[in-house]
């Protein structure tokens, strides 16, 4: 199947897709890690900005 034709599988079998991917998770992975990932990019974290 090409990338073009590939439809995400989760619409039809979400449990299988998630189970396969979740094998990579460690005990410390938590949902809030997403916001931390955005906020901790070092190159933009210290950019000179002002608060409005």
């Amino acid at each position: 199947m090409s990338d073009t034709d590939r439809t995400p599988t989760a619409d039809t079998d979400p449990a299988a897709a998630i189970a396969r991917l979740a094998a990579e998770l460690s005990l410390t992975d938590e949902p809030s890690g997403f916001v931390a990932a955005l906020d901790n990019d070092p190159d933009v974290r210290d950019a000179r900005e002002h608060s409005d």
Partner: protein
Amino acid sequence: VTDWSLAPLSRAIAARRVSPVEVTRECLARVERLDPSIRSFITVDAEGALATARELEAELAAGLSRGPLHGIPLAYKDLFHVRGLPTSCGTKTRAYFAPDAESTVVARLREAGAVTLGKLNMTELALGPFGDNAHHGDVQNPWKRGHAAGGSSSGSAAAVAAGFVVGALGSDTGGSIRLPAACCGVVGLKPTYGRVSRAGAMPLSWSLDHVGPLARTVADAALLLGAIAGYDPLDATSSRRGVPYYERVLETPVEGLRVGVPENYYFDGLDAEMDAAVRAAAKVLAELGAEVVAVRLPDPAPLADLCNVIARAESAAIHAKLLRERPHELQPAVRSRLEVGLRISAHDYLQALRLRARCAREFVARVFAGAQALVMPVIPEPAPALDAVKAGTPEEVVRRMGRFSRLTRPFNGLGLPALAVPCGFARDGRPLALQVVGRPFDEATTLRLGHAYERAAGWVTRRPALD
């Protein structure tokens, strides 16, 4: 006046060469004359708009100016709650969404002096990338009637392209600002997750929803972003990070910026004209001094699976009452997408949220170690024919939706800023578009690249022939 973009119109109003009332009247007249064939508005608030314009005109006469948005006509996707107006969210129900307070972004624009012309058409519940709507009419592409305006912020993009308003707001859960912007040949920005408050905007997926501007130029989008961005105590996901003066950084040369062009996934199976236009745009950036390099991105397929689980579970929870009590009112493909969410377990939903955090962390660390921004297409082909995208079973329509939004959805999952900028036209006149993706909270560089390209390429002066 309706041919101008925001920045020159703002200067003309400030210099008293044209008044807010004149501008508002001209825009309303154009909407009345031309929108019956475009279907971009659900509600036109002529009386309210003129009353606001008169107040703003009186302020100017008294020597008071609220800044660059003073007297500027805008309109909002019909999922933003605007004081005194119904919010249908594209459903059959006239006032489907009725929160206690006006949406934060609309309130901020009102304070900044914007005139609200009305509420804009959209895909039902923001669930679909083509802009068709069985209740309020299919939004027509101003460049080619019978073709999709893109969705779900279909009316927002079409109204800007048609010159009904100089700017609009949209929301983007899987591409719903960038897809219609690309189809209609206007600029659309999905900011970083948390950059712009979503309070008072209909939620579709708390984890993936973003609010952002659509406008004719990148500079206009920057101006609108500056007005709506920043911390909001009414949105728990809103970031406390400071907001730069975006318009001031636009003129900084792009020389030396390292810009990645994906060598996997994003150009696979692309329409030939789209492919050539996006690659030509990357070349323009290189000629302007950017260091354009090929990059290999993490496979977006796992991320797409996770985002589907998250989006479906959250949207089914949010709209459960409508789905349970009045499912017959929903368009078949919209109903089909919502119902999937009812079958997702709490376990799978939580695992998807955990995996998403990991994907974002790895993407930012790996990809942005070698590039400050990425460029790629927004849509795989120019705006498709409406009849073609609506044909077939709900399952076929849903699969088609997934294919059309496959280049934008990854950046909702990753929460990164992503900008759609026009980059030419197909032989038959349909717009082509470039997507610029930046680092988290670095809308400034994203806009700077888009602005530099836009000015060098010159497509921005073209307008669809509507009269």
